[in-house]
């Protein structure tokens, strides 16, 4: 969560978290209530996406005219009235619903303090349906810096130097993949963003697409520039209607602002993106199946090689990257490869977003540097029940070794959350070990 300053605003500013999780917890009703009751002269009402604190939903952020920030959580309609009357009316914070700082019994502080936000930088901090909000926090700055000033080879070199590896699961170096596609012969090339996040328990990509859609689009534009593509596809599963809606709106805004379309920002570079909606096939998260689906066929995986980077969509060189991979790219372009490579471990650079769900205290999204041990994330780990209950955490990053089939990941001692070690430490298992044999074991 990036604290958005109140920019000399003389009004109170209220931002309600309206991601799928927030809406499912009743945030839309709160928003409507606020819209009805709040005086627009005194209060500026906004929506934001998901702050990653699913266990605190529904929640809102309140910024006072002085610039102080208050996070209200576990709200209901009565609480909203109280906040309006007591806090905005009488300048007295409503303690009962305030997300407190230190010493919270359920460890919210720890939940937040170990995090390093790159992908989720703006999630929960900006209005996902507003281009201006995105521009205000540096959206499309990387594209502006790149076009006309850097060659595609330079962009690929930055990616390679950053050490970014594909966040879809296989962990293939992004720069290398881009170079294959850039070097492959062919006049027509494609960029595909894989938003078919079907693995049960994983919702990192949904969070990003719903909360900061412009970031994904910006990553795709940079990818298109690097490999020389003119067309991009965003493949998003139909089960994410809110993500589809917000991405669609973001594409229109980006086109109107000249970040997409013919001669982007007055340059020679033309690139446009269209959305393809999934139709409920889990296997389409696998790249060759996804390509078949865009081609209008059954989503059957194909043997590789040839890899999509050589022969992909309609037989043309195609780069497929995951949503989270693309969301990393603008940051890397802005801050430099060295800054990114400075995070994480020797072989796994940067950060990784994890979705936490199951029988745990603090479910939600966390972004931590690669290499952190599974024990360190764990304010959220603490089980609601005894230590042997079915706690699990799921991440498609460490959990999709092949063909889009996910595996369950469990805490295995001090296993580090990074690509090579997670496998060697046997943190990944497909079978249930008897000591971890809760009732849900048969689920996968």
């Amino acid at each position, binding site marked *: 969560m990036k604290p958005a300053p109140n920019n000399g605003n003389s009004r109170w500013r209220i931002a309600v978290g309206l991601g*799928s*999780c927030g*809406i*499912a*917890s009743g945030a839309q009703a709160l928003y409507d209530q606020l819209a009805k009751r709040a005086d627009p002269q005194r209060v500026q009402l906004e929506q934001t996406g998901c702050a990653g604190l*699913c*266990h605190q*939903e529904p929640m809102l952020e309140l910024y006072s005219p002085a610039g102080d920030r208050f996070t209200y959580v576990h709200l209901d309609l009565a609480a909203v009235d109280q906040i309006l009357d007591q806090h905005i009316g009488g300048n007295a914070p409503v303690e009962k619903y305030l997300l407190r700082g230190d010493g919270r019994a359920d460890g919210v502080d720890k939940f937040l303090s170990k995090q390093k936000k790159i992908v989720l930088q703006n999630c929960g901090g900006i209005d996902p349906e507003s281009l201006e909000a995105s521009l205000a926090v540096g959206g499309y700055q990387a594209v502006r810096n790149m076009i006309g000033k850097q060659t595609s080879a330079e962009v690929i070199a930055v990616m390679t130097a950053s050490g970014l590896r594909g966040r879809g699961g296989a962990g293939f170096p992004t720069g290398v993949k881009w170079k294959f596609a850039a070097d492959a012969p062919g006049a027509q090339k494609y960029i595909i963003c894989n938003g078919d*996040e*079907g*693995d*049960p*328990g*994983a*919702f990192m990509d*949904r969070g990003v697409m719903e909360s900061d859609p412009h970031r994904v689009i910006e990553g795709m534009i940079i990818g298109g520039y690097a490999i020389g593509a003119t067309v991009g596809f965003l493949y998003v599963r*139909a*089960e*994410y*209607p*809110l993500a589809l809606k917000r991405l669609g709106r973001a594409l229109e805004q980006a086109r109107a602002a000249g970040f997409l379309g013919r001669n982007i920002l007055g340059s020679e570079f033309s690139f446009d993106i269209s959305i*393809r*909606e*999934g*139709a*409920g*096939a*889990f296997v389409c998260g696998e790249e060759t199946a996804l390509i078949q*689906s*865009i*081609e*209008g*066929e*059954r*989503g059957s995986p194909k043997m590789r090689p040839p890899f999509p980077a050589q022969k992909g969509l*309609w037989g043309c060189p195609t780069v497929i990257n995951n949503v989270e991979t693309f969301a990393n790219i603008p940051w890397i372009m802005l801050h430099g490869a060295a800054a990114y490579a400075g995070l994480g471990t020797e072989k796994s650079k940067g950060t990784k977003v994890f*979705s*936490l*769900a*199951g*029988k745990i205290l603090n*479910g*939600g999204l966390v972004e931590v540097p690669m290499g952190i041990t599974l024990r360190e994330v764990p304010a959220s780990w603490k089980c609601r029940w005894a230590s042997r209950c*079915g706690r*699990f955490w*799921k991440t498609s990053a460490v959990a999709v070794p092949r063909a889009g089939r996910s595996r*369950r990941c469990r805490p295995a001692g001090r296993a580090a959350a990074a690509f090579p070690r997670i496998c060697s430490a046997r943190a990944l298992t497909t079978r249930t070990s008897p000591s971890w044999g*809760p*009732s*849900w074991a048969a*689920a*996968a």
Partner: protein
Amino acid sequence: MKEVAAILQSQGTERDACVKVLQEIQGVFGYLPAEALRYVTQHSQITSRQIHGVATFYDRFRFKPVGKHIIRTCHGTACHVNGAKHIGHAVEEALKIKQQETTPDGLFTLESVACLGCCSLAPVMMIDETVYGRLQPREMKKVLKQYAAAAKAKS
């Protein structure tokens, strides 16, 4: 078949438009009516074989009409752990229908889905495009009643 002709015009008549064309047809009719599919095969490169292959491959496509609201109960891992089965049973009981069936009044169709991505709020269900989280059977019934009441008020 005016609608289908318009869809073919906007999406194209090549084979690779198949998934999009079917999605749009379903968007208009709620399902894939046989006449519409026949029209597609007669007026495009898309063959009946391809349509059958594609429509039976993807879970979203259906050949039968649906109710006004589609209920999708989530059976992903997190929901499964948190009692998705009970929610599914409770819906079946409350509406007196089974999975993939539609209520006699044409109000609800019940489907299940692999994962809605709201795992931290499990168990969840989605009615049309609205997600309901941290469900208990009792609350779920309340939600269904609201929909039924709203439909009644409209008629």
